[in-house]
């Protein structure tokens, strides 16, 4: 079973660098290049592990960081510019716009407090004969394209507040708990991964429900839960 975990989504290499710098609370004017380079590369590794798309821009930045790091190791000549200067300037420029983007986001929210109304429909008066409505030449893909261009143009996404569809619960937390408890009684220990794999069709709901069941059991029954590493199997053992 393949896991796809959402790491933080970064807008680009600058965005990622900022995240690392802010996390470390270091001055942007004096970036410890070798430390940051290491963390940057670690991060790219993690992205690769989770099958995230690493674009060429991220690789280019890695190369730039390594180059700067190499320069920093060389003896400093007089009047020589700090090898980090260009990167810092770019970062500062990027940050300026990133901050403004956040402020605009607030403006965007603010402007949603005003309601306007749709245009009047004078051109299409009610006495137009319905017969004129000719849909014969239009196929479903044209219909699709019309819809797509409409929602793109209007920049609008309707969120149906009252969900109209209600799905029946296929497995309840109670059922999953009963199943896990039964196994615990028989074997003394249960692997969550194996329990999930027993299901012929593994769905997200099934995994989540089982996980909730484990949490629920740990709350009420005498069990211990083990996990060796992040993302590794979860073992449940009776006390």
């Amino acid at each position, binding site marked *: 079973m393949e896991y796809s975990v959402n790491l933080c989504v970064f807008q680009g290499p600058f965005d990622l660098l900022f995240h690392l710098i802010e996390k470390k609370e270091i001055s942007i004017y004096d970036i410890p290049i070798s430390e940051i380079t290491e963390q940057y590369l670690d991060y790219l590794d993690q992205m690769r592990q989770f099958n995230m798309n690493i674009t060429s821009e991220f690789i280019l930045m890695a190369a730039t960081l390594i180059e700067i790091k190499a320069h920093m190791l060389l003896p400093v000549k007089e009047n020589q510019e700090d090898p980090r200067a260009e990167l810092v300037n770019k970062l500062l420029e990027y940050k300026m716009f990133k901050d403004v983007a956040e402020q605009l986001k607030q403006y965007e929210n603010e402007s949603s407090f005003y309601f306007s109304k749709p*245009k*009047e429909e004078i051109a299409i*008066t*009610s006495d137009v004969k319905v017969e004129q*409505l000719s*849909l014969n030449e239009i196929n479903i893909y044209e219909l699709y394209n019309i*819809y797509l261009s409409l929602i793109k143009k209007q920049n*609008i996404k309707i969120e149906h507040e009252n969900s109209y569809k209600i799905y029946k619960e296929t497995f309840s937390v109670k059922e999953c708990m009963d199943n896990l408890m039964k196994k615990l009684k028989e074997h003394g220990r249960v692997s969550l991964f194996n329990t999930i794999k027993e299901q012929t069709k593994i769905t997200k709901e099934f995994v989540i429900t089982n996980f909730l069941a484990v949490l629920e059991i740990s709350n009420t029954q005498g069990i211990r839960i083990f996990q060796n590493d992040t993302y590794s199997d979860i073992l449940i053992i009776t006390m």
Partner: protein
Amino acid sequence: MNNKNLKGIIESLLFAWGEPLNINEISKILNIKASEITVLLNQMSESFEQDTERGLIIQKFGNSYQLTTKKENFDFIQSLLQTQVNKSLSSAAMETLSIIAYEQPVTKVEIELIRGVKCSNVIKGLIDKNLIKEVGKIDKPGRPTLYATTDEFLKHFGLKSIDELPALKTEKDEENEA
């Protein structure tokens, strides 16, 4: 809240709603007796009518009220709306139909939000053609009608079921683009 503020709110509500709005709806939202709302609406209606500085009036249809433009300004409005390219009826209908197909069940207000124009007449036309139908009402203020496509719609486009509509790009695809 004083009566002046209430009148302002009622005007906002009529404006945003667009269609005739029932007094009981207004009464529920403002938590004020319908009879008091009627008094306010009648005062507003009269003052709108008499004030030449106003271009709007409040029209009464039974127990419902609607904000519309004054009759004497019709010629100007017509020349404004006609300077713009008039969409043919069928393209208006196609737009509306595509939204109903993908968003169903959907209310008129939601369709108008996407199209940016009023859709009452187009919707009526599509119902007459049996391409869409009313499938219920939402239990919320205004009790808006929900519309969905019909079997005739499927037949017209040669689809076995609504699931066969061309798949929309997912949010993620869009994200990469926009």
